[in-house]
């Protein structure tokens, strides 16, 4: 690299700063400034605005007649809100866990010098390219006992086969997990595969020479190396889980009854369909609060341990 020779005016450390050098020092901050401003306004500003609205009795459109925390009190008394919140914990937890497990498994298997690896990888990855606006319809068919998998398996002669989660109020939320895992697990697989390829082979070879068994090598040597991947994957999966909206609308519509409602659909229904912007805003604030309560400790511990490790 011939950088030094092409530079007109070298300015080493310790020299007094010229205006140009001062500008250079400020440049990184200047470059970041628009993004910071955007995120201050469009993310934090909007959150503040939503919080203000949650203290009003806004109906169809925002109004500024304040009612204190009455909307939060109403929310707490709302049975559907509790169903939705519980569902998010169940759905989010299972979704993240299964995606991580399945993604890791497929990545490890795919990393065994597989023929047709490219084709398989594409097959695992493609659901991420589709939106739920219509794959939702297909899933609805597949999970419907009368139309889909149950009917098919029974058609093959297994008359007692039952798979009716979609129409069972207690199980409907798990069908959301199935469809969401289908969409996102391939992506997690790609992340893990990338992580596996990034691990230095010599470490594994050394462990093999020591006589460690393959499962043991994976558990003791490979997995710890993948920790940052798990971090990235959890961030992306958590983001998908919290934002899951199209999925619910297309697959269960929140039903049966409102047994498979999620906070995102609850918020949308109240703020937009039911002309209760105030209540919707209150639910949005609680949702954000929940996200923060889970994310901040995780972020903190991850970033901290990384700095020390």
């Amino acid at each position, binding site marked *: 690299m011939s950088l030094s020779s092409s530079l007109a005016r070298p300015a080493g450390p310790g020299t007094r700063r010229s205006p140009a050098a001062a500008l250079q020092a400020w440049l990184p901050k200047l470059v970041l400034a628009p993004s910071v401003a955007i995120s201050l306004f469009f993310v934090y500003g909007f959150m503040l605005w939503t919080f203000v609205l949650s203290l009003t009795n806004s109906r169809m459109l925002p109004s500024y007649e304040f009612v204190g925390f009455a909307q939060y009190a109403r929310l707490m008394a709302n049975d*559907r809100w509790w169903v939705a919140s519980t569902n998010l914990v169940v759905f989010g937890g299972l979704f993240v866990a299964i995606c991580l497990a399945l993604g890791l498994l497929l990545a490890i298997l795919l990393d065994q010098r597989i023929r047709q690896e490219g084709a398989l990888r594409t097959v695992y990855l493609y659901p991420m390219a589709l939106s739920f606006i219509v794959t939702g319809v297909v899933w609805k068919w597949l999970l419907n006992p*009368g139309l889909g998998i149950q009917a098919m398996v029974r058609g093959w002669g297994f008359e007692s086969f039952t798979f009716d989660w979609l129409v069972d109020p207690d199980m409907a939320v798990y069908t959301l997990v199935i469809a969401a895992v289908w969409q996102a697990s391939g992506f997690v697989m790609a992340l893990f595969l990338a992580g596996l390829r990034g691990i230095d082979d010599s470490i594994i070879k050394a462990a093999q020479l020591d006589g460690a068994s393959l499962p043991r090598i994976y558990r003791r040597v490979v997995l710890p190396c993948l920790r940052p991947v798990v971090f990235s994957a959890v961030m992306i999966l958590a983001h998908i889980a919290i934002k899951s909206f199209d999925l619910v609308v297309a697959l269960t519509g*929140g039903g*049966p009854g409102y047994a498979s409602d999620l906070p995102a659909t609850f918020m949308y*229904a109240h703020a937009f369909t039911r002309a209760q912007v105030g209540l919707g805003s209150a639910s949005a604030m609680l949702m954000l609060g929940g996200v923060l309560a889970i994310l901040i400790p995780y972020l903190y511990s991850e970033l901290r341990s990384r700095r020390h490790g």
Partner: protein
Amino acid sequence: MNAFKKTPFVLAASLAGALSLSSAHAAEVEVLHWWTSGGEARAANVLKELMEAEGYGWQDFAVAGGGGETAMTVLKSRAMSGNPPSAAQIKGPEIQEWGELGLLGELDGVAEAEGWDTLLPPTVADIMRHDGQYVAVPVNVHRVNWLWANPEVLEAAGVAMPTTLDELFAAGEAIREAGYVPLAHGGQAWQDATVFETVLLATAGTDFYRQALVELDPEALGSATMIEALETFKRLRTLMDDDMPGRDWNIATSMVINGDAAMQLMGDWAKGEFTAAGLTAGVDYLCAAAPGTQDAFTFNIDSLAMFRVEGEEREAQQALARLVLEPTFQEAFNKAKGSIPARPDLDMSEFDTCAQRSQEAFRQTAEQGGLVPSMAHGMAVRADVQGALFDVVTNYFNSPDLEAEEAARRMVNAAQAVL
């Protein structure tokens, strides 16, 4: 763009551009609606052609999804940005809400010139007015309390079209024994509510219906009559199949068409499915008032509300309001939708037998007081109350262990909590 405007040349050019733009787009309306299925869209196209024949432009802004829910979201977003369309498909009490926000423009000039006061039935006209002024124009009248049936299945089970709820339950048993699903249903909140309001109408009558679902009288909502209606409503579950939750209404209709199910309780838009399957009303499929509701008519009226706009756009908007009630459009549109025209003076001989009966029922019930707004279709109460009632109804219908008393109590709370 702003930076360029500083130079005189670009300024002139953009001015010229703006001028030619405005002349090319002279007097046009932007219409937000959710008539997106093939038949509906073709019918709505008649309106567009009428507008164009008079020299006005039509900018089509269609947004489907969730029975207009998505379109309403878009409308709110447009209103927030201070840029609402000229006209939007808004109906029932929601027209009043938009009117209260001061966003709607009046149509009194057109209404007077066209004699809407005499042309439109009073019930319909009342919904179109805010603060005494016309702000919306009706497109059609749907009847919600219909029972649809497959005659072959009824015959195979040896039953006739039921006219009371008792007959419905009795027929249901026979149909079940003959190996069919008695009642096709889709377990979505609005469909549950559609069936519920029909049952309430059948068991408690129109006066009670009005008290409970229109006036939201807490005594009526918590009364023994309501509890009984809720219990009957849940009993209907025994006539349905287990796979219904989440099913779209038209899939339920196709169960009737295919002969898997005998009957369906659904509004008259279901006709579109039968027609698309090549069936003829009265021959290949039967229609009748929902059991026990012969003397009632639950209406669901689609309308176009007009937003406050100025200048040429307003002129075009007024023309649009006039043309919506034009016979050519009313006939074409309502044949496609399965509904009846919003103006009762049209010749119905071209319509099918179900529509003719609907028209007759509308006239009769309007005279005898059996005409009631549909709660399930947003004609009776505002969206927040409607939503709260939906939650109670659908949760009760889908929870085996929730008692009718508890549901009635929740209904009272729901109506009060949002007031």
